[in-house]
């Protein structure tokens, strides 16, 4: 039998008994044909590839990342905890050196889930990668991590969670927000005051193909990663850039995804979106599995694969080249950009981030103000004031992982001094001591 070059842990959990609704893209059938392909290929018999069952993420895993309104239990289903638990299991196998790489093919996805959770957005309730990363940081010690999100939709949830964290570099490839949900992910969304430059968006034009994606990877993402020197690279492996995806407009392929994964060489990959359940997912997932295992993926092709038809226009190529150059220059100048931005503070201690957030799956509108303290010793205490149009108003205090004693103290002080009854709920997230409370 075949032997994998890299020992690969595969958490394959199609959740065949769970759906958002019976005709929703996120339904029981989503990974059925992927499973058929993976089984038929005999992946489980390849020496070095190991199937691992997911575990269940805990309430604390969720609280480390999110403020659920009203609470974790009412917002999060077992299926969501298992999906996140699957990602955690994959990462655990990697951290414990049981495998060289790990891939969590789980559902539902998570990268649209932001810090505050009023409901389901973009089929996501909790951010499965963030839960995974904060879980392993808690258990295995701090890690400098890069997340490369290759889902077609901007991972606005992951961006929000790591907005002010320079130890988590977030790079997102996606279809330009002017043409697709969630309508964000522009290049000027560059990170909070303590992490300016560590949130990199690459909004690509519709009909970007293999050439464009691999150009971005080779000429932008890889150089940035080389400079950033992460301890761990995670691929948010959404698969809806595929040319057959029903809800996007890109021209990426299984070969392209496999090559991208091979060159990126992530330690851990986690499935995100991807709804071409017959034409794309079986092939893209297989391609990624083989690439991660270090096996030949050159025979993985879709039935209707035609490189000629999928070739991107010279105009698109030109646009992407310029875009990459612009983004790369911004990355190089991030310190200058940050300095200029801080000059405009004029002595104010906090930088505010004000947004309206729409929950498309549940039809909720949220108004939110985040405030980040500019602290010379740490990434700074921050707060969230948020109100949903369903009438809930909350206030959350977050003490970041690297908080200095003064920020910790201030965090507890604000939490205690916020008058009860003013908000529906008040939260404290103390990442230094891994303590979470609410009143």
């Amino acid at each position, binding site marked *: *039998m*075949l032997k994998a070059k890299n020992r690969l842990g595969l958490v*394959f*959990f*199609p*959740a*065949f*008994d*769970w759906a958002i609704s*019976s*005709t929703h893209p996120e*339904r*029981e*059938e989503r990974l*059925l*044909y992927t*499973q*058929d*392909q993976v*089984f*038929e*290929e*005999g992946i*489980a*018999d390849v020496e070095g590839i190991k*199937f*691992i*069952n*997911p575990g269940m993420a805990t309430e604390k895993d969720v609280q480390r990342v999110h403020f659920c309104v009203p609470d974790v239990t009412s917002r999060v289903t*077992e*299926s969501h905890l*298992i999906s996140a638990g699957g990602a955690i299991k994959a990462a655990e196998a990697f951290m414990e050196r049981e495998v060289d790489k790990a891939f969590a093919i789980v559902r539902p996805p998570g990268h649209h889930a932001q810090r505050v959770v009023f409901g389901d957005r973009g089929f996501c309730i909790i951010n499965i990668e963030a839960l995974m990363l904060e879980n392993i940081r808690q258990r295995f010690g701090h890690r400098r991590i890069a997340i490369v999100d290759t889902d077609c939709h901007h991972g606005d949830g992951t961006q929000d969670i790591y907005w002010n964290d320079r130890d988590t570099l977030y790079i997102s490839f996606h279809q330009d927000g002017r043409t697709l949900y969630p309508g964000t992910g522009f290049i000027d969304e560059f990170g909070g005051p303590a992490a300016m430059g560590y949130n990199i968006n690459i909004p690509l034009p519709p009909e970007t193909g293999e050439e464009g994606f691999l150009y971005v990877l080779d000429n932008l993402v890889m150089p940035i990663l080389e400079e950033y020197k992460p301890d761990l690279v995670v691929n948010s492996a959404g698969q809806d850039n595929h040319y057959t995806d*029903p809800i996007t407009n890109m021209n990426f392929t299984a070969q392209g995804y496999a090559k991208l994964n091979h060159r990126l060489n992530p330690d851990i990959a986690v499935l995100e979106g991807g709804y071409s359940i*017959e034409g794309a997912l*079986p*092939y893209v997932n*297989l391609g990624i599995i*083989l690439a991660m295992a270090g*096996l*030949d993926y*050159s*025979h*993985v*092709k*879709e*039935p209707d694969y035609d490189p000629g038809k999928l070739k991107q226009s010279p105009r698109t190529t030109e646009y992407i080249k310029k875009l990459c150059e612009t983004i790369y220059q911004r990355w190089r100048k991030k310190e200058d950009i940050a300095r200029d931005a801080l000059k405009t503070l004029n002595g104010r201690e906090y930088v505010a981030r004000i947004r309206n957030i729409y929950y498309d799956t549940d039809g909720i509108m949220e108004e939110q103000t985040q405030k980040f303290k500019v602290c010379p010793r740490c990434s700074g205490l921050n707060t969230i004031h948020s109100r949903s149009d369903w009438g809930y108003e909350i206030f959350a205090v977050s003490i970041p992982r690297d908080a200095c004693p003064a920020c910790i103290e201030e965090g507890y002080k604000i939490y205690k001094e916020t008058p009860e009854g003013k908000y529906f709920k008040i939260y404290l997230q103390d990442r230094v001591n891994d303590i979470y409370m609410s009143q």
Partner: protein
Amino acid sequence: MIVGLDMGGTHVDAAIIDRGNIIDVAKTLTDRSDLFGSIWDALDHLLSGKDMSTIEHINLSTTVSTNAIVEGKTAPVGMTIESGPGMDPSFLSCGQENIFITGYVDHRGREIKPIILDEIREAAYRFRQNGIKACAVVTKFSIRNPMHEIQIKRMLEDEFCPVTLGHTISGKLNFPRRVFTSYLNSAVYDVFKGFCGSFKQVMEKKKINVPVNVLKADGGTICLDAAREYPINTVLSGPAASLLGASAFNRDNKDAVFLDIGGTTTDISFVADGVPLFEPLGITIGPYPTLVRAIYSVSIGLGGDSAIHVEKGELTIGPRREGLPMALGGPAPTPSDAMIALGLLNFGEKGKAISAMKRVGEQMGMDAMAAAETVYEKMGDIIKQKVDNLLADINSRPVYTVKELLYGKKLKPEYVSIIGGPARAIAPVLERKFNLPCRVPENYEVANALGAALAKITAEITLLADTAAGVLSVPEVGIYDRVDRNFTLDMARQKALELLKEKAAILGAEGSEIEPEITEESCFNMVRGFYTSGKNIRIRAQVKPGLQCELRGGNYA
């Protein structure tokens, strides 16, 4: 009355059973150069003086196919493999000639590229040039659409025999295993066919006119004619015979560990709610993982005659056997010597056993009896550790639904059944290590023959209805048909059970002994755009494996 016969590596065991009572048993030595003669030796012993008219059937567990594979006495096979897109298929080259063709069927069974007739003609030419007679044809996703395999068979069958088709082997998805299993089936076809022919001849000569069934690795039987077409199913039936036999003494619906401790190895199996646990996909034969359904059995190199060594104060037992125990004049100390020294076993010369243990003790700074105790304890530890590891593996087998993950069955043994030479001697230490009751059946030496005798016909089928495409397929019985859009899960269940009964009858089952059951079922809503376009219904059904009748007792002479 039923006759059961198990041919092992060293002995042929046979037994006659009448309504659950053991009437008589026979044991003869296996002559590896004359397996056929060894079987008749045992049968002649057993049947002499018996009234042939009262015998209902004979169940055989043979090593004919297994030995052919192990000893490389198989026929050269010409493989025609259609792999479509996916993994690099070159690792599937298992035949003497391997022709990779360009057709392609996808995961829903849709033909994407047809076969190219010239490629098949070229394959036939190459087989012919190499003097190959046996062929196998396997296409990816053939269980979803067998038409390419069938078309190719039509082009080959006039000239080649057998032509094993992948989709007829098993309904399970796993292309590499389907290739290897089909290859092995064609490779042992002639050897097994020869065995069947000779067996029938001798039966005619001896005027024995009863149905003959052959034991499979899953502990079920099939009639001789069916076995002749799919001889691969008869490999490695020994552990199945042993487990069935042992379970005949333990009739309950509990989870348990089953150990068969021999001279060289210990075989470990499990029952879940009283039913033998199977390999998830199939058994591995030599280097080949297959789709041959089999009872889960893991062999470890630890038995009564395993060699004991001490290196740097560290005691090791096995995995090799270097000869007889020293109590019988062997070269190295063995667990049997330890148990003889401790008075738990009673054969050979006790003095020699004690001096064997003295030798072990000297290297570990202890006296002979302490060394014997240490060996005895260590044996228990090794077995317990291995069983625990296997249980951990089994209990973490992948599951795919929330319900299974949260509430799925976990195997939790409530007792340990032990058979084999040192069974009784080793039971006390295992009882302590496992902290579970250990059962040693009275007549365990006939367990294998008994298992063979009590086995019944088993069969399995896999039904898939894709009402969006309007296709129904049941590969094991060669059904690939249109299906109505209104076909439901309930109709699918009915259909599966009917087809299973038919199949079991063809394999030799009599109506009353067939207990069909659905083992897996699922029904997916297929949505294209925003509309439901059909259902994807999947069912697996089997004849419940197990024993033909209860064992009443061992009242044979």
